C-alpha cells in the first residue's frame, strides 16, 4: 500500500460533562481517501466526538490534528475553513430559506466582495454571485436535488433534507466530511440511494469520510475501517469483518448472554 497522508489524527481526546466522562482517551488516525465508521450503542459518545472535532465542544483533554495542523480549541467556523465539514444527527437546515440558498450560505466564507460591492452591485458582485450559484447547483446535482433548487428547505421530504445537508457540507470545499447518522430514519430505498450518493461523492471529490451510523448493513457495506466506542471508551477498531466477530462489540450491542450463546 502506498503511503497516504494522515488527514485526521486525535491524541487522547477526552470530554467531561460535569463529573461524567463522555469520551475518554479517543485516538484515531484517518488516511486520505478513507471511509471510516464510528459506531457504538446509544449514548456512547459518538456525537460528542464529532462535536469536539468541529469545535462545538472544546475538548477537556487531548489534541486534534487536521493534515498535521493542530486545530484543538479553534472556533467552529475556523475549523470549517481548515477543511472539515459536517452534517447533523437531528437535521439542522435553514428551513425558511430555499434549497439553493441553503447551499449558497456555505460559500459565504469564500465570497470576496465587500459592502461596497454589495451596495453598488458592481460587476464583481454579479460575477461572484453567478459563480457561487453555478457551484451550488453542481453540489445539488450530485445529490440529485437540482430540480428542487427553488423549494423551501423545510418543505422537502425527510430523505431529501438529509441529502441537502450533505450538499451544504460539500459546498464548504472540505478535505474531511463528517456524517452524523446520515441514514437515520430513512427507509431501505432511501438508504440505498444514500449509499450510491456517498460513493458518487467519494469518486468525484476524492475526499475522506468519517461517519457515525446505526444502520449496521450500511456500515458493514461501505466502511473500510470501523472504530467502536462504548461509554466513551474505544472497545475495538479494525476492518468490518473483524468488528462483526469481535466479542466485546457483540457484548456492547447485545449484552453478555448473547456472547455466551454465540
Amino acid at each position, binding site marked *: 500500500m502506498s503511503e497516504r497522508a494522515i488527514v485526521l489524527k486525535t491524541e487522547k481526546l477526552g470530554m467531561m460533562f460535569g463529573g461524567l466522562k463522555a469520551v475518554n482517551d479517543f485516538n484515531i488516525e484517518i488516511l486520505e481517501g478513507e471511509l471510516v465508521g464510528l459506531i457504538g450503542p446509544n449514548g456512547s459518545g459518538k456525537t460528542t466526538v464529532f462535536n469536539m472535532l*468541529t469545535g*462545538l465542544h472544546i475538548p477537556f483533554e487531548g489534541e486534534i490534528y487536521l493534515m498535521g495542523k493542530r486545530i484543538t480549541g479553534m*472556533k*467552529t*467556523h475556523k475549523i*470549517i*475553513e481548515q477543511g472539515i*465539514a*459536517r452534517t*447533523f444527527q437531528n437535521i*439542522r*437546515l*435553514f*428551513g*425558511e*430559506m*430555499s434549497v*439553493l*440558498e441553503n447551499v*449558497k*450560505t*456555505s*460559500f*459565504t*466564507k469564500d*465570497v470576496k*466582495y465587500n*459592502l461596497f460591492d*454589495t*451596495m453598488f*452591485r458592481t460587476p464583481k*458582485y454579479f460575477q461572484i*454571485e453567478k459563480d457561487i*450559484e453555478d457551484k451550488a447547483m453542481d453540489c445539488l446535482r450530485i445529490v440529485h436535488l437540482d430540480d428542487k*433548487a*427553488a*423549494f*423551501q*428547505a423545510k*418543505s422537502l421530504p425527510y430523505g431529501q433534507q438529509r441529502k441537502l445537508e450533505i450538499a*451544504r*457540507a460539500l*459546498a*464548504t470545499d472540505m478535505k474531511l466530511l463528517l456524517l452524523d447518522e446520515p441514514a437515520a430514519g430513512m427507509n431501505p430505498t432511501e438508504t440505498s440511494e444514500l449509499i450510491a450518493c456517498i460513493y458518487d461523492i467519494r469518486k468525484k471529490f476524492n475526499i475522506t469520510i468519517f461517519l457515525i451510523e446505526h444502520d449496521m448493513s450500511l456500515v458493514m457495506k461501505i466502511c473500510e475501517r470501523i472504530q467502536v466506542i462504548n461509554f466513551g471508551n474505544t472497545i475495538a477498531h479494525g476492518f468490518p469483518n473483524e468488528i462483526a466477530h469481535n466479542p466485546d462489540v457483540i457484548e456492547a450491542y447485545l449484552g453478555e448472554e448473547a456472547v455466551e450463546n454465540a
Partner: protein
Amino acid sequence: MTDLRKKSLRGVITNVIMVALLIIVIYILSVSLSDNNYRLKLVPIIWHLCIFILLGTSLNLTMGFLGQLTLGHMGFMGIGAYTAALSSLALERAGLFIAKTAPPLQLIGVMLGCSLLGAIVAGIISLLMGIPALRMRGDYLAIVTLGFGLIIENVIANLPFAGGNGLAEGTASANLYQNGLGINSRLQAQYVYFPILLTIICVAFMFMYTTSKYGRAIKAIREDEIAANASGINATYYKILTFTISAFFAGLAGGLYAISTSSLTTGTFTFANSSIWNSTFIVVMVVLGGMGSLTGSIIAAIGMYMLNYEIKNGAWVAAMPQFLQSIFAFPMLIYAFVLTIVIMFKPFGLMGTYEFSLRRLLFRKSERAIGGEAK
C-alpha cells in the same frame, strides 16, 4: 446565451418602469405640495413617515433577518438626534451656519453631514455595546438592549450640555428651533425631497444588504446558529455587523428627527410612552409588517403612522359617540387591538418574509421557474 440576454433585457425594462413610476410619484407630490392647504398637512407627515420607515426597516435587520429581539432601538435614534442637533448647534455657535438664512447647498450639506455624524456615533456605540451583548440570545438580549436603551435616555438627560428638557444650557428647549438644526415648516416644505431621497437610498442599501451574502449569512444565523457556524459562517462577526448597521440607520433617522422638530426631549427615545415615538411602537411595526420583510416594515410604518394620525386628527373620531371617543383617547389600546387581529389571522405579519419585486410582478410566470427565492 439567449436566456441570459432575455434576463438582462428584463432588468432594463424593470429599471425603466421603476424610474418612470418614481417620476410620476414625484410629479404628483410636487403638484399636491404646490397647494398651500395640502402642503401644511403633508410636509410633516412625509418627514415623520420617512423617519418611521427608516426605524422600522433598520430594526427589521436585527429583529427579522438576524432574529435577535432588541428593545432599545430608540436609544440609538436618540444618540443620532442629539449628536446631529448638538453638532449643528456647535457649527452655529462658531458662526459658520444659520439655518434660516443659509444658502441651499450649505443647508443640505449641514443637514446631511450632521445626520451622518449622528449615525456614525450611534453605530460606534452600538458596536461597543453589541460585542458583549450579542453573546446573549433571546430574552436575555432583549433585557440587555431594553436596559441599554433606558441608560442612553438617562445619560443624555443628564448631560450638562444637552439640558434636562431640551438642548443647550439649562432647559432652553426652544433654542433649537431658533438657532439650531431644526428648520421651520417653510424650509421643511422646501427641502421635503431630502428625507425622501435619503430614505430611498437607505432602504435600497438595506435591500441590497439582505439579498447579498450578508443577507444569506444572517438569515442562516436566524434559522440555526450552530448550523450556520458549521457552514463556515463567523456568526459573531455577522451579528455585530448587522447590529451596527441597524443602529447606524436608526441614528440617521434620529438626525432627520432633529431636523424636523423644534425641540428634543429624551422622553421621545424611551421604551414606552404615551406617544408613538418609542421603541415598543417600532417593534410592533416590525412584527405587524412581517419579520424578514423590508416591504412589510414600510407598509406597517405607513399604516401605523396614518392610523395614529387619523386617531389624533381625524374628523370621524370626533363624530363618534362619547364612549368610543374615550377609548380613542388611549390610542395604544387600538394598536394592541390591531396587532392582536393581525397576529391571529397572519401569524408571520402582513408580508411574512415576502419582498415586493417589480420584476416578479411584470414577469411573474417566467421568473418563478428560475428560482433563488423560496417558494
